[in-house]
């Protein structure tokens, strides 16, 4: 009897620790999602400003964060095969292609913000003791898939953006009968420690999932003995 009681007591403490830790992760992921989404919106607004005014933007609040945006486009005069590269000026003709390209460049970051949001929802469900419910599993699946898509897509973000801008250039030329060539700026936004943070979040998630799988395997063993 004493053995059973102490076993139940330690299982209860493990459960409390698991739920507490899941709650903490829910807070971390929720905060990361909100911060990342805010940064994306601010960057997009800053790019729009630079595109319309032509003024470059350089922001280095500390050695860990650096954002640099410069407006560059190519002007192709009608009837001429040569294009001039112009820096520091607004680009009215190629505005739409550039916006589409920049939106695609930012798409992986938006996917990551969504991943953190789903992670927060998953950890919140776990913190409430809903380990094996369908909703929890759905949030976990979205968290994992969005993270995977981010890792696969982010190296190609700039290429995708330039490809989209080029496609739109073709459409604008077709409609306006004027040569248009958009060259995307290299938007440099570096946040030191971000890869480590991302790895840490997913490593903790894997650990929590492993602990829950132990519980699930016990339930599965019990169910196997029901005929």
């Amino acid at each position: 009897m004493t053995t059973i009681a102490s076993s139940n007591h330690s299982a209860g403490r493990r459960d409390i620790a698991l739920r507490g830790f899941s709650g903490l992760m829910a807070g971390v992921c929720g905060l990361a999602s909100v911060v990342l989404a805010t940064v994306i919106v601010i960057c997009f607004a800053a790019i729009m400003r630079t595109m319309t005014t032509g003024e470059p933007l350089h922001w280095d609040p500390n050695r860990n964060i650096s954002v640099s945006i410069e407006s560059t486009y190519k002007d192709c005069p009608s009837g001429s095969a040569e294009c001039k590269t112009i820096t520091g000026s607004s680009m009215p003709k190629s505005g739409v292609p550039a916006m589409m390209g920049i939106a695609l460049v930012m798409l992986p970051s938006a996917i990551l913000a969504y991943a953190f949001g789903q992670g927060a929802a998953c950890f919140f469900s776990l913190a409430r003791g809903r380990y094996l419910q369908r909703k929890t599993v759905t949030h976990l699946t979205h968290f994992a898939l969005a993270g995977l898509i981010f890792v696969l897509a982010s190296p190609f973000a700039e290429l995708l953006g330039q490809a989209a801008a080029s496609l739109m250039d073709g459409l604008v030329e077709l409609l306006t009968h004027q040569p248009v060539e958009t060259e995307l700026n290299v938007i440099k936004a570096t946040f030191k420690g971000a890869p480590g943070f991302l790895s840490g979040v997913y490593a903790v998630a894997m650990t929590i999932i492993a602990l829950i799988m132990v519980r699930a395997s016990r339930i599965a063993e019990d169910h196997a003995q029901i005929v």
Partner: protein
Amino acid sequence: MRIVVKLGVVMADRNVKSKDLAVQVGITEANLSLLKQGKVKGVRFETLEKICAVLDCEPGDILKIER
């Protein structure tokens, strides 16, 4: 007080073999053997219904309470 499984007795009365019963009920012979010995954690209503249909008996004929 515990539940005792009398499935073996009922099967012997009706001269039904384990292999045939397992096939008709839709469970493995191994699980049927565990059920006969009372070593399972539970029985689904669906399984109990099929056993009773094959053996033409009541659930109370298979499951008894031992006080």
